[in-house]
């Protein structure tokens, strides 16, 4: 018994020591210990007064509708005059931290928060881990902290509806990232727009290949986890393809060359497994066009085709979404042909000005939509946007 107690006590001590050693070092780059919510909440009215005193820029003289643009200019220049974020609070719930795209978004937010003079202790960052239950728990944790602005990055717009309703009751202001949260302002990609752009680009490539007759199979990725909003990133392409080629590419029609590819997009490994099964269903298909949701899926498809002995880059057209570091490598390696870039590394340039506009001017100072510009990145233009290091 005595020995058991000793082992148990040592275990608890080891756990605590390990936690002490590990936890501070594994915090997100910008965040240190979070202080009690009550002490960090800054009232909008007092913030406005503070702004005039501390920023050196008379923000009160700027019309509310110009605040966002003023901060945007500062963000683009990489210099926020007078530390406007100082003394304010912000929270960010990331969609799934494991993705390079999401890491870029997070790093960009942290970078601009710091550039704007925001303190580590006033920034809360959580990971929704692509799990609705965790997203709900994180929402509660953030609501308790009562940040002035909550940047919500979560897959399911329908779950976001409930979050929006509660946020309004609790007086928490949200800026939605990529997936709408009720009628709160939205920042990110125009999901349908980027798919239309990708569809149009794909049609150009198909025509260069000799037209749709030369294509054996068109795979449109469709996966439940992403929710209907993110699915628009494929839907727009489907609509463009059907508009151009008709029923022969419509995944809803029987006998069509276009089919829904239900492949997990949450990791390359899972996508690979699903795409292996999908490819096995179409053993005769040689010339294949793939519209996929992200670069992990594109890498998964390539791995699946390779394992199945069917990887033929000359007869494969991969159109991906949300270019990230993996996607850049895939483009340079001739695997992905075109990738719609949302420039996640620039999300902070929109989100922090949007947040600051709210902090200094209230809800009306924040534009309802803050869209990023999409560009199809290919092997021909990648160095223009992302020069090789």
């Amino acid at each position: 018994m005595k020995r058991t107690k000793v082992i148990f006590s040592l275990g608890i001590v080891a756990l605590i020591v390990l936690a002490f050693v590990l936890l501070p070092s594994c915090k997100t780059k910008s965040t240190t210990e979070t202080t009690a919510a009550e002490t960090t909440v800054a009232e909008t009215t007092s913030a406005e007064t503070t702004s005039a005193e501390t920023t050196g820029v008379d923000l009160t003289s700027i019309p509310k509708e110009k605040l966002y643009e003023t901060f945007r200019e500062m963000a683009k220049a990489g210099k926020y005059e007078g530390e406007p974020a100082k003394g304010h609070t912000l929270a960010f719930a990331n969609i799934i931290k494991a993705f390079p795209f999401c890491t870029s978004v997070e790093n960009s937010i942290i970078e601009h928060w710091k550039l704007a003079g925001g303190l580590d202790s006033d920034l809360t960052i959580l990971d929704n881990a692509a799990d609705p239950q965790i997203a709900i728990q994180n929402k509660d944790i953030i609501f308790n902290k009562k940040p002035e602005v909550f940047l919500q990055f979560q897959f399911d717009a329908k779950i976001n509806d409930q979050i929006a309703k509660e946020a309004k009751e609790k007086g928490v202001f949200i800026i939605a990232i990529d997936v709408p949260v009720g009628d709160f302002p939205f920042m990110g990609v125009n999901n349908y727009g980027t798919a239309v752009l990708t569809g149009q680009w794909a049609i150009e490539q198909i025509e260069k290949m000799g037209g749709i007759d030369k294509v054996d199979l068109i795979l449109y990725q469709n996966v439940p986890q992403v929710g209907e909003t993110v699915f628009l990133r494929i839907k727009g392409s489907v609509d463009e393809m059907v508009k151009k080629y008709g029923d022969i590419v419509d995944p809803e029609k029987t006998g069509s060359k276009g089919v829904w590819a239900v492949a997990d997009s949450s990791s390359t490994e899972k996508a690979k497994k699903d795409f292996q099964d999908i490819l096995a269903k179409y053993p005769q298909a040689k010339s294949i066009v793939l519209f996929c949701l992200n670069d992990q899926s594109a890498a998964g498809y390539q791995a699946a085709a390779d394992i199945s002995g069917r990887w033929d880059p000359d007869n494969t057209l991969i159109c991906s979404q949300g270019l990230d570091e993996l996607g850049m490598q895939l483009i340079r390696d001739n695997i992905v042909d075109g990738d719609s870039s949302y420039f996640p590394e620039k999300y902070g340039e929109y989100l922090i000005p949007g947040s600051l506009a709210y902090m200094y001017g209230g809800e009306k100072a924040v534009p309802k939509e803050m869209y990023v510009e999409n560009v199809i990145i290919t092997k021909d233009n990648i160095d223009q946007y992302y020069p090789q290091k």
Partner: protein
Amino acid sequence: MNKQVIVKEKKKFKLSDTIILFIALIVIVIFFTLMNRAFFSYANISTMLKNMVITGILALGLTPLMIARGLDISFGSSVSFTGVLMAVLYNKGWSLSLCLVVGVAAAVIIGFINGLLIENFDLIPIILTLGTMSILSALALVLSKAFSVSMLTDQLYYFATKSFLKIPISVFVLIFFIILFWFILTFTKTGRVIYIIGANPKVALLSGVKVKKVRILLYTFLGFIAGIASIIMVALTGVGNPLAGAKMALPVLSAVVLGGISLAGGAGSVWGTIIGVLIVSVIFNGVSVMNVESYFIQMVQGLALILIVSMYEVRNKRASRR
């Protein structure tokens, strides 16, 4: 004489597993409070309690089943499926109460089928329920066309977000089930039968206990609990999500095992399970409040699981040597 005194003193200082677990919980709570004062605030504790309701009631439902040497890992998929079913029916114009009743009834039937197949065909529970899990997940996807289905109602929203006596309403559901399971396992004949089956099913059978029937009842009751968990999940999220329960098995099973319930059955208590659930929830919440990435939350939860389960093993080995 002296020996008797020593034995008495030893007995006096013997701590039960539940007490040790409770001390571990207190240590973890103190640790997180020291790391961040916001952790021990009313608002945060209230959030934590609210967020442990689903894990808590599922773990409670699993407790008597595992004590009786049964196992079901399909409860997460059952939550997903019934959630989607309720939401689909609601969108077809069914009344809210009817949707909820049908959802719970479906979950009860799933639990009953699990129990019936396992007990009547002597199937290995983990294999059978793995199969059920897969079927239910697929059914949820088919029914929802792979998207979450809205079910944002005023009543469920009220249930999910409001408090009574400053305690979130959903927490009362957990309290109700704690009392119910504690009462059944401690004071009723059924409770004693469950422990007897877990200790030795053959002896129980020879003693006239209807082992199969009791176990089928426990699987069915877990189904009922999954149905209730599904309602709470729909209330919290406002949707029937086909993947809502996909990741539930690990935290629930971790909580039950942390609570001292062995896969070998025959031992465990409601309080142990609840402390297990609290430990899992406290670690998640405490680490989240500290702004630490989710990977490390899983790591710390895993560490706690290994540590406490190892402690049980050491204690059991020591006890068996005596």
